[in-house]
C-alpha cells in the first residue's frame, strides 16, 4: 500500500450512520443557536468577509492583503519591476512604528530585522525568488528602544499578468508569546535532562529502586498493609568512585535484607529498605544487623579500601496511615540523623510523626542548614526577549551534604522546584 492507495481509500469514505446523525443534530443545534442569537440582537457577522471568495476581485495582491487583514496579520511586499517595498499598517505596528512614520525601502526593512537574523532573511527571500517557491521563516525584529519581537513570515512569489514572477509578498505574524513558550519548554526539557543525568546509575532495573520508584513502593505497601521503613545513611559518600561505592553498598544491603524486602537508593550514601508485614522489634533487630555489618565491612571502590560510618532510622506504618511515602521518608531520615547526633546506631519510631512535629523538625533542619551554610544557591538569568533585557533571576537552591558538596536536585527531592518550594514553605 502506498500513498496513492491511502489517498484513494480516504477519498472513498462515505459518512457513516453515526456521522449523518451527528450532522443532523448539529444542524438543529446551529438553527437553535441562530434563532437565539437573533433574538438577543447579537452581531453575527462581525469582521467576517461576506464576499464570495471565488468571484469578484481575484488579483493576488488584494487577495493576500485582504486575507492578512482578516487574520490581523501584517504584509510586506517587494515589487521586482520597481524594486520598491511597501508594507501594511499592521506590519508597521509589528515593527513598533506608527503607520506612515517610516518610509519603506529594502535597506530600512533589513535594518528593522535583528542583525543576527538579517542574513537568514536575505537568504530565504533570495531562495524563494530564485526557486519561484513559497517559504516561511521565524525571525526577530527590533522595535524602538531595542525591544525584540519574534515574527513568523510566509513568503510567497507573486505572478504578474504575463504569468512571470513579479515580486514577493510576506505575510507576517507576531509570534513572540509562542516563541517564548517554546523556549521555555526547551529550557525545562534541558533541566529535566540534567536531573535525569544526575540520577544515572541510581536504581538499575533489577537492582535497588531509585527514589521515585521506591516512594511508589512505599505507597503500594501502605495501601496493602503495615510494615517498617528503614533508611540507612553512610559516610564518607565520596571516594575516588562514588557511584561504584554506592552500588557496592546497595548490593551489600540487598544481600542482608530479607528476600521480600524492597531496597532503594535514595541519594548519595543513603539507602532504603522497605519491610512489609513486619513488626518494629524484628525490623529493628534486622536493621541493627545491617548497620553493624556495614560498619564492619571493608569496601573497595578505588585504589584503597574504605570503612564506612553508618546509621539507621526506622518508622513503622499501618495500612492507610495518613502519612504519605514522602512523610515516611522524612521521618526515617530524621530518625537516622537523630541517631547520628546522639551517637546511637539506630533510632526507631513506632509510628509516623505527627504532621506538625514533622514540619517543625524540617524547619529546625532548614534553620540549622541556613545557620551552617548548608545550602548553596545558583542563579540563572531570565532574559525577557520582549524587552531585550534581564528582568529577573531564577534562584535554584541546592542542599550541601555533610562533606560540603551540593546534592543534585533529584537526590534530595523529586525536582529542583520542589526543593525550592519546600525550603520556602518551611522557612516561611
Amino acid at each position, binding site marked *: *500500500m502506498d500513498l496513492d492507495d491511502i489517498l484513494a481509500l480516504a477519498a472513498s469514505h462515505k459518512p457513516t450512520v453515526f456521522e449523518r446523525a451527528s450532522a443532523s443534530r448539529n444542524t438543529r443545534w446551529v438553527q437553535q443557536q441562530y434563532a437565539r442569537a437573533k433574538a438577543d440582537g447579537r452581531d453575527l457577522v462581525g469582521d467576517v468577509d461576506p464576499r464570495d471568495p*471565488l468571484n469578484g476581485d481575484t488579483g493576488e495582491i488584494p487577495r493576500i492583503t485582504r486575507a492578512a487583514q482578516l487574520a490581523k496579520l501584517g504584509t510586506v511586499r517587494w515589487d521586482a519591476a520597481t524594486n520598491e517595498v511597501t508594507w501594511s499598517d499592521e506590519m508597521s505596528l509589528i515593527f513598533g512604528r506608527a503607520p506612515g512614520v517610516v518610509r519603506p525601502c529594502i535597506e530600512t526593512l533589513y535594518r528593522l530585522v535583528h542583525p543576527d537574523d538579517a542574513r537568514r532573511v536575505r537568504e530565504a527571500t533570495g531562495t524563494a525568488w530564485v526557486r519561484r517557491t513559497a517559504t516561511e521563516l521565524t525571525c526577530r525584529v527590533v522595535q524602538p528602544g531595542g525591544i525584540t519581537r519574534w515574527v513568523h513570515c510566509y513568503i*510567497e512569489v507573486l505572478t504578474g499578468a504575463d504569468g512571470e514572477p513579479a515580486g514577493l509578498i510576506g505575510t507576517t505574524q507576531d509570534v513572540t508569546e509562542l516563541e517564548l513558550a517554546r523556549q521555555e519548554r526547551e529550557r525545562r526539557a534541558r533541566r529535566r535532562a540534567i536531573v535525569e543525568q544526575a540520577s544515572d546509575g541510581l536504581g538499575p532495573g533489577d537492582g535497588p529502586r531509585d527514589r521515585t520508584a521506591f516512594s511508589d513502593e512505599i505507597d503500594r505497601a501502605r495501601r496493602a498493609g503495615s510494615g517498617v521503613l528503614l533508611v540507612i545513611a553512610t559516610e564518607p559518600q565520596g571516594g575516588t568512585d562514588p557511584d561504584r561505592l554506592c552500588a557496592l553498598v546497595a548490593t551489600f544491603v540487598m544481600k542482608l535484607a530479607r528476600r521480600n524486602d524492597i531496597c532503594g537508593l535514595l541519594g548519595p550514601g543513603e539507602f532504603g529498605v522497605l519491610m512489609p508485614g513486619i513488626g518494629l522489634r524484628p525490623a529493628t533487630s534486622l536493621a541493627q544487623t545491617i548497620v553493624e555489618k556495614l560498619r564492619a565491612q571493608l569496601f573497595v571502590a578505588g585504589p584503597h579500601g574504605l570503612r564506612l560510618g553508618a546509621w539507621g532510622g526506622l518508622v513503622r506504618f499501618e495500612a492507610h496511615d495518613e502519612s504519605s511515602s514522602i512523610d515516611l521518608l522524612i521521618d526515617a531520615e530524621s530518625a537516622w540523623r537523630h541517631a547520628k547526633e546522639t551517637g546511637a546506631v539506630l533510632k526507631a519510631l513506632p509510628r509516623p510523626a505527627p504532621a506538625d512535629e514533622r514540619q517543625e523538625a524540617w524547619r529546625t533542619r532548614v534553620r540549622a542548614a541556613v545557620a551552617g551554610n548548608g545550602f548553596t544557591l545558583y542563579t540563572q538569568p531570565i532574559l525577557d526577549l520582549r524587552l531585550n533585557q534581564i528582568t529577573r533571576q531564577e534562584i535554584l537552591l541546592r542542599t550541601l551534604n555533610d562533606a560540603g558538596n551540593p546534592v543534585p536536585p533529584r537526590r534530595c527531592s523529586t525536582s529542583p522546584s520542589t526543593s525550592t518550594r519546600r525550603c520556602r514553605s518551611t522557612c516561611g
Partner: protein
Amino acid sequence: MTAAERRLAELDASFEDFCRENIVAVERFLRSQCGDRELVQEAVQETLITARDKWEEISGYEKPLAWVYKTARYKLMNEQARQRREATATLDEVPSDRLVAPPADSREAQEWLLGCLRRLPERQAAVFALAIEGWTDPEIARILGMADNTVRSYKSTVRRRLKEFAGDAGFGTPARGR
C-alpha cells in the same frame, strides 16, 4: 402563510440541507489543521451560525462551501489565537500521530491522513485538504487567500512529506496488482 414567511421557510430548508450535506466535510477540513476537536467544533458551529445569518446572500454563490471553508478557517485561527493568549505557558508539543499498520478501511485512511496533515504547517495542510476534495488550484488560492504559485508549491511539498510519513510507517510500497 405570507410571501416573507414562505421565503424564510425556504431559506431554512435549503440551509439545513446544506448543513447536513457539508458539516462533516467542514469539520474534516479544520481537523486537518487542528487536533483539538472541541475547538474545531466551536469554529464550525460559529461559522454556520454566521452562514445562516447571511444565507440569503451566500446561497446565491456558485459554491457556498468555498465561503464556509474560508470563514471557518478564520474562525479557527481566531479561536486558536485566543487560546494561545490564555494558555501560552501550558501549550505542549502536539504528539505526532503514529500508525503501526496500513489503514484497514476508509475511515482509518482518513484519520491517518488528518494526523499526518496536522504534523505539517497549517497553510500547507489546508491546501492539501482542499486539493484532495477536488478544488482547483485557483479556487484553493482564493479560498485561502494565497498566491497561485504557493498552492502549487505547497501541494508538491505536502505530497513529498506524506510519502515520507508513509515510508516511516512502513507502508510506502505500492499495493500488489496495481
